[in-house]
């Protein structure tokens, strides 16, 4: 290896470039919003006002910021699961269903066992949320590993099944007893006991789930790069023959990747109940309960380059974008469909920006020599090594 001194200057320049690269998703988001500005103008709204409202709505006040954080919690959790799944080379698009089942199990528990101390109930509920997600993620995992059923197919199907399970429970066995009697028949459960709710940062809705999610992000980072299990998941994701050769049970680790991925989604579902709504409510669709977090979490993870730690700010940014866009819609009164379309544009622009990030990285690589900038994994490895 070359002596440190000679490279320190280069390293500095390299770092600067590397920071620029890391910001690429943000530039991409701005570009998408620029395109969105055209739509806004066509709809007769002033883009400056609109985006001002967006920023204001997402980050403009303490309260707005906490709302953004509330939104970010499920994104981060699902995103963490996505990081694990992608590292293990499985495409888990079953986050929606996993959230639902996690929520169902934990809500059932919270409404059934009402005599426990709050902290214990919350812990058990978290475990049950995790278990619910694991069941719903584990089934596609087993089907993939042992029956060769593609996980894209199975997770799509599992999402649809989860919705029906939820609908059935919300109108039958788990419906709010008040609603069972009432004419309105709202498909929702009863509310959780006060003591069973995740502590909040009063007076905002920001709940302890954020803290837990951040801790878990760090844990996932350690899991992936510092534990044998993480090593194995990544190995299986990169090369199945080589993993087999290395004595790793490939099938088992495919299941484990989906189990873990599902666990995080299930926990996200639990948090939506115990931290935000204090009950399960549906409108008959998955989105009605999950708010699309099962999908958007995947996007947030991508924002975060599938790195658990970068996924933290990425979720906050993406959450802010979602919260802010709703605020913008209220201010300039454009149809909410525009928000969905904008959301889509942002996703497309951000994934495409990877290309420019890589290219710029490569350019730096040839400029500063190969030893400085290696592709992502090595970089993370390097961080893991130096941490």
């Amino acid at each position, binding site marked *: 290896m070359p002596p440190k001194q000679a490279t320190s200057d280069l390293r500095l320049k390299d770092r600067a470039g590397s920071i620029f690269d890391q910001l690429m998703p943000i530039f991409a988001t701005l570009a998408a919003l620029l395109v969105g500005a055209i739509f806004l103008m066509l709809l007769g709204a002033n883009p400056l006002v609109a985006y001002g409202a967006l920023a204001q709505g997402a980050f403009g006040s303490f309260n707005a910021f906490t709302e953004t954080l509330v939104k970010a919690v499920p994104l981060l959790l699902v995103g963490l699961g996505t990081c694990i799944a992608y590292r293990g080379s499985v495409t888990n698009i079953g986050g929606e269903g996993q959230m639902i089942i996690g929520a169902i199990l934990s809500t059932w528990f919270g409404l059934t066992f009402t005599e426990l101390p709050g902290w214990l109930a919350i812990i058990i509920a978290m475990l049950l949320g995790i278990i619910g997600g694991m069941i719903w993620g584990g089934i596609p995992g087993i089907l993939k590993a042992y029956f060769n059923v593609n996980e894209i197919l199975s997770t799509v199907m599992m999402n649809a099944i989860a919705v029906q399970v939820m609908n059935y429970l919300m109108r039958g066995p788990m419906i709010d007893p008040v609603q069972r009697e009432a004419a309105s028949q709202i498909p929702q459960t009863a509310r959780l006991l006060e003591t069973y709710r995740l502590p909040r940062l009063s007076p905002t809705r920001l709940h302890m789930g954020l803290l837990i999610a951040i801790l878990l992000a760090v844990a996932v980072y350690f899991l992936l790069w510092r534990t044998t*299990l993480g090593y194995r998941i990544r190995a299986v994701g990169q090369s199945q023959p080589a993993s087999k050769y290395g004595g790793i049970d490939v099938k088992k680790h495919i299941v484990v990747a989906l189990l873990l991925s599902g666990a995080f989604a299930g926990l996200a579902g639990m948090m939506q109940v115990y931290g935000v709504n204090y009950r399960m409510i549906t409108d008959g669709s998955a989105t009605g309960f999950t708010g699309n977090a099962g999908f958007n979490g995947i996007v947030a993870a991508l924002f975060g380059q599938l790195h658990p730690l970068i996924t933290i700010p990425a979720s906050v940014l993406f959450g802010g974008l979602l919260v802010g866009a709703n605020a913008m819609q209220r201010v300039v009164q454009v149809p909410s469909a525009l928000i969905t379309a904008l959301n889509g544009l942002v996703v497309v622009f951000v994934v495409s920006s990877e290309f420019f990030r890589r290219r710029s990285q490569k350019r730096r690589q040839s400029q500063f020599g190969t030893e400085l900038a290696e592709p992502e994994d090595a970089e993370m490895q390097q961080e893991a090594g130096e941490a």
Partner: protein
Amino acid sequence: MQKNSPVINEKVAFETLEMRGITKRFPGVLANDNVNFDLRAGEVHALLGENGAGKSTLMKILYGMYHPDAGEILINGKTVRINSPTSAIQQGIGMIHQHFMLVPTLTVAENVALGLPSSRKPLTDLDRVSERIISLADKYHLSIDPSAYIWQLSVGQQQRVEIIKALYRGAAILLLDEPTAVLTPQEVNELFAIMRQMQSDGYGLVFISHKLHEVISISERVTVLRDGRNVGTRLTCDVTQNTLAKWMVGREIEFIKSTDKPQVGEVRLALEDVSCRSDRGVEGLRGVNLTVHSGEIVGLAGVSGNGQLELAEALTGLRPITKGRILIEGEDVTGKKPAEITEKGLSYIPEERMKDGMIRDFSISENLVLREHHKMPFSKHGFLQMSYINDHADRLIEQYRVKTPSRKTLAKSLSGGNIQKVLLARELSREPRAIVAAQPTRGLDIGASEYVHEQLLMERKKGTAILLISEDLDEILALADRIAVIYEGKIMDILPRETATKEDIGLLMAGVHPGETIRNEKCD
């Protein structure tokens, strides 16, 4: 390919090819540095050089896959622009890549027809293509079934498909990048026969190989690249193996031979009547009996596809066996998982090292613990111990002289020789009781091969039992103490090195016991 052209292209008129001042730069590497190279109709021009010398790069430039930073190419004295494989094909250039460019799920005829205009546009004209394939195959004695799927073919057959593809497109210049690396001696002979016939038909051929005797026996001229520079072109008649080796590496190379008597100890590896299935579901091994003792190297010779892979995988637990027993140091390990067998001290150098032995997107240090990542001191209570892993990597990189910028470098950006060094480092540093080494020097240059051989002999000296699977008879004869020959999943015979001859082994590899006479029944 002009419009309305006949379905098969006529051989392009070709006299001379000249590459002038070719320079190609990759990030951090000058792969070709002002290289001049020329080729004439009717000659085989060998291209030699160590791993990473720039041979493939030069050929890929000629084939339009890479764009040179400087230099020009002249065909028949005229400057041509070759900026894609398509334009290379138009200029009459065909390339047989080291990694075959075939679509395994398509048939031979489909692979040949791919990208060509069809006489029945928009439909394919596979019947006509098949006819032409058969006529081409007849001309060059390349027996091939046009309707067979590529995945059903042996490596040698696949290579013939590659040659047919090029001829079909009217190629007059054929670039063969290490075509013999994956062939059996018989197949090499067949290939050479084809090459000689093409040569006499006025084709120009570029031949890349790390095997000097091949270069000497087939080529008219030889060019040596070193660090991307052309260090000279000679008539092959003017050189010997030793001068070539010295010229390539820049130092004297001694061709190693294990001459000392083995210190044979107890049986370390034993297969008793082992049978198993191959990937295609047919019998891969059929009642194999074989033992390897401490301190000896047993060579397993055979034409590729006769059960070598199955045997290696059965031994290492990667493939379930259907019959028989496998013993390591007398202990029955039949049906044990790969991890448990690794535990017993069996190391394995797989044939497909990039696919089976390494994780391309893992760093060197991660790859170095692939086998032991879960064990002390690399892992404690399920947590990886990065400091041990890093120290381990640094130590092995130095000890095995792996050429790499750092331990964080990803495996995929290493050269073939260095990948093999990392693999050896990992497998040997475990202090194995026994080693299965499959084609350990395939694709390596002389220097690297020499290094691998040295390492294996050192292990033998330490008392390790080694099963050396190779299609390279010279390698087997140089290293092995006993030579087993495998044919259609059975061990034909086991010969002591002293009495083994190339001819006998060759016959056994073809399924014939020396001395046995085969008669066509019809002749009786």
